[in-house]
């Protein structure tokens, strides 16, 4: 049976409310300096007061995030496909790809600013650097997960390599691709903020930095709230896309996920 909305989300909401209430009481009763820790109500008022400025910065950050994520997705798909189709490229690139992930991108961000300047480009680059890896790896895994027997079946039908890819391997890799995209979508806004903090013309990251320097702590918190909402929105959007793209995957989740599900790893088959 399906659980009701309240029994599913109620506990988390109540817990969040209690935590907020505790925070509010602590700042009021403990007489905490609002420059150190503003009360939740104060954050909300600040949010309303500086809405126009905040909105401007949010739009800018959102653009970097979405553009970066989209470009990362395209790069990752192309890279995964090429690596899947050409063995040499795969053997050449895969180790370097792993190696690239050991470079702290946070440390790279200031360099990118020096090389490419203060505008949007280098920020988008930071987002791409953060996001393309999980998507690429997920895609490669998905393409590799095609059961061997399915390939045999296609070959017995005299399907070309492209047909095998188009009819079986790509659709089978989609659930895996979306897992990667979901991870990337949670990284993306944070990556944009990293890019902005080291120097930008606009954006939530640089706004936070300014507010911090001006001791406007409530504004920092207001930016954090917006950033969280942005991340949630992006994550929700990816989930929506996934539902639209894979109706079969979600309608069968509960009842019969294994069986002969092709998107899962190949099951042990009789020879």
């Amino acid at each position, binding site marked *: 049976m399906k659980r009701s909305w309240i029994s599913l989300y109620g506990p988390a909401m109540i817990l969040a409310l209690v935590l907020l209430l505790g925070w509010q009481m602590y700042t009021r009763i403990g007489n905490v300096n609002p420059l150190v820790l503003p009360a939740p109500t104060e954050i909300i008022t600040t949010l309303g007061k500086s809405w126009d400025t905040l909105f401007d910065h949010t739009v800018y950050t959102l653009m970097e995030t979405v553009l970066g994520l989209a470009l990362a997705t395209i790069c990752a798909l192309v890279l995964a496909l090429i690596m899947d189709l050409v063995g040499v490229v795969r053997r050449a690139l895969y180790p370097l790809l792993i190696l690239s992930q050991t470079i702290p991108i946070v440390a790279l961000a200031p360099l990118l600013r020096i090389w490419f300047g203060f505008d949007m480009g280098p920020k988008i680059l930071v987002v791409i650097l953060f996001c393309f890896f999980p998507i690429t790896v997920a895609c490669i895994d998905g393409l590799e997960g095609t059961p061997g*027997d399915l390939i045999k079946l296609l*070959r017995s*039908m005299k399907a070309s390599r492209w047909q095998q890819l188009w*009819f079986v391997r790509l659709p089978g890799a989609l659930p895996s691709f979306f897992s990667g995209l979901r991870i990337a979508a949670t990284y993306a806004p944070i990556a944009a903020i990293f890019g902005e903090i080291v120097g930008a013309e606009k954006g939530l990251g640089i706004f936070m930095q300014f507010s911090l320097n001006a001791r406007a702590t409530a504004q920092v918190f207001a930016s954090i709230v917006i950033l969280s909402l942005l991340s949630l929105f992006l994550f929700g959007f990816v989930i929506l896309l996934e539902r639209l793209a894979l109706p*079969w995957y979600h309608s069968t989740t509960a009842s019969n996920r294994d069986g*002969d599900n092709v998107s899962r790893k190949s099951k042990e088959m*009789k*020879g």
Partner: protein
Amino acid sequence: MEQRSIAVSIKKVSKRYLHQGREVPVLQEIDLTVPQAAFVSLVGPSGCGKSSLLHLIAGLDEPDEGEIILHGDSKSSRAGKCGYMLQQPLLLPWRTVEENVILGLDVRKTPRKEALEKARDLLKRFGLADFAENYPATLSGGMKQRVALLRTVLFQNELLLLDEPFGALDALTRQTMHLWLQDLWESISASVLLVTHDIREAIFLSDTIYVMSHRPARILQRYDVDLPRPRKIEDLSQEHVIQLEQKIFAQLMEEEKV
């Protein structure tokens, strides 16, 4: 000479596979014939190489020695000329039943509309019309296997290579599948080569049964099943049928011991 033309004939076929750096003989001088529109079964101990033979006939691999003559032709590529069905139904979960059935036609680039018409007609003739637009995940094991069979038939109905298609089903479902397959086979008059380790299944469905040895597989014996068609489940309790079953069973037991 032969009264009927031959769908596939296998002459002295041998095959070795590399296993942990060593060449292991899997098939040894296999001789076998499937006449046009005949139902032929191949029974043998598990892991003896029955599946490897189908693999070769389907054109996924070439024999080391001997030849495989498909519809009188031993030279050209065999891929795409047989309907090959494996033990797992291997339905694509993102395609509906009818879309799964047309997979082979998609590979052949048949126009969608035409392909779907053919699929719907086939599904209707064999009692699956109600499921045409379902996703495979909603089907039972037996139903999935029927869909997989129809996919095979729609792709290529002259020669069907069935690799233990009912191995994963429960006994009752398997029996209904036998009746269903008999109907299907009679109405499309296909030539069938079925690999199985179920002797009753082989006897019920086949005109001819080849018994294979333990690895490396040779043909031990060939039996003709003398039963009029269409057959009923009760036919299996006839005296001479039971004797045949026991004979094959004893032969296989002997092989399992080796």
